[in-house]
């Protein structure tokens, strides 16, 4: 289990999901159940290109966008896929199984108060 003040992104989010976005891009979504949790996540600033590139083993330049989308209490990350969808050697055509490294990533989390 996580130590005090440390949570995985999967612990604090309502869900974390991934999906192909056209043949060459992958989109990761972190969606929060309520505004308060979303605001805490934003204030902690746990994600940047360097962190995401490390989680996925890709160059930082392939982390194309990190979008904070307030109306949905959600963070969207767009990556360039190492191999295009359905390309030779590629193993997840729909890109729907790529959320786990992000979901299990541990972040500092203030105790609720």
């Amino acid at each position: 289990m996580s130590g005090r003040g440390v949570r995985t992104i999967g612990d604090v989010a309502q869900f974390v999901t991934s999906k192909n976005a056209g043949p060459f891009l992958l989109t990761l979504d972190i969606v929060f159940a309520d505004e308060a949790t979303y605001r805490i996540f934003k204030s902690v600033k746990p994600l940047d290109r360097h962190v995401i590139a490390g989680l996925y083993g890709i160059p930082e330049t392939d982390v194309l966008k990190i979008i904070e989308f307030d109306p949905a209490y959600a963070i969207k990350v767009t990556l360039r896929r190492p191999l295009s969808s359905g390309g030779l050697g590629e193993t997840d055509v729909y890109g729907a199984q790529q959320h786990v490294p992000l979901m299990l990533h541990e972040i500092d989390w203030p105790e609720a108060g």
Partner: protein
Amino acid sequence: MAPTASTRDRMTVLAPEGMLGYGIPVRSMEEGLARNPDVLAVDAGSTDPGPYYLGAGVPFTSRRAVKRDLAMMLDAAHARRIPVLIGSAGGGGGRPHVEWLVNVYREICRERGYRFPTATIQAEIDKGWLKAKVARGQVTPLDLLDPLTSETIDAATRIVAQMGDEPFQKALDLGAEVVIAGRACDASVIAALPIRAGFDQALAIHMGKILECGGAAAYPRHGSHSGVASPKAGD
């Protein structure tokens, strides 16, 4: 929700399902038809399943399911004299995919005695033409900055271009009541009739984007269910 009636100031679009062949629930279709739609518009394709189906010239949906869903739509179109617009026929929207869906369509029409003025619109583009465009620097990439090369073009089995709402409008202008098109922007299929009728194009495309997956934009979230939208003049 009150039934909507079509006027010059209002139009109703029914997307019977999010993907032709996903299995329209009968009750969902009935609810949609009760809103007196002016058009039935459906997307039949996706890039999600990868390039195999496009290259191989085969659909990714079941023929039996597509026939069942298309027959439901044609029954409604025949009874109400409203057009049916289908984009990205056969999934990939290439020539064999359009031909595959036309074959299913003809079978239904033969069995039921339907005769609709029909348009097919092809979306495959010639490799030589595309390479000439690349050579002249007239091709710009989307999303990523990787340029299209003549080697990539040669390596492709089949290349389709994505059409907008204009070819659908042209087909309707020519008197078509059923339009079976190759690769098309899914939102444009849904938006084509309202745009042709003079409704705001941006609003109509936005409506199309919401409806293109049928009931998937609503709760409970099911892409096989129908979605209805009614743009109003002045919106």
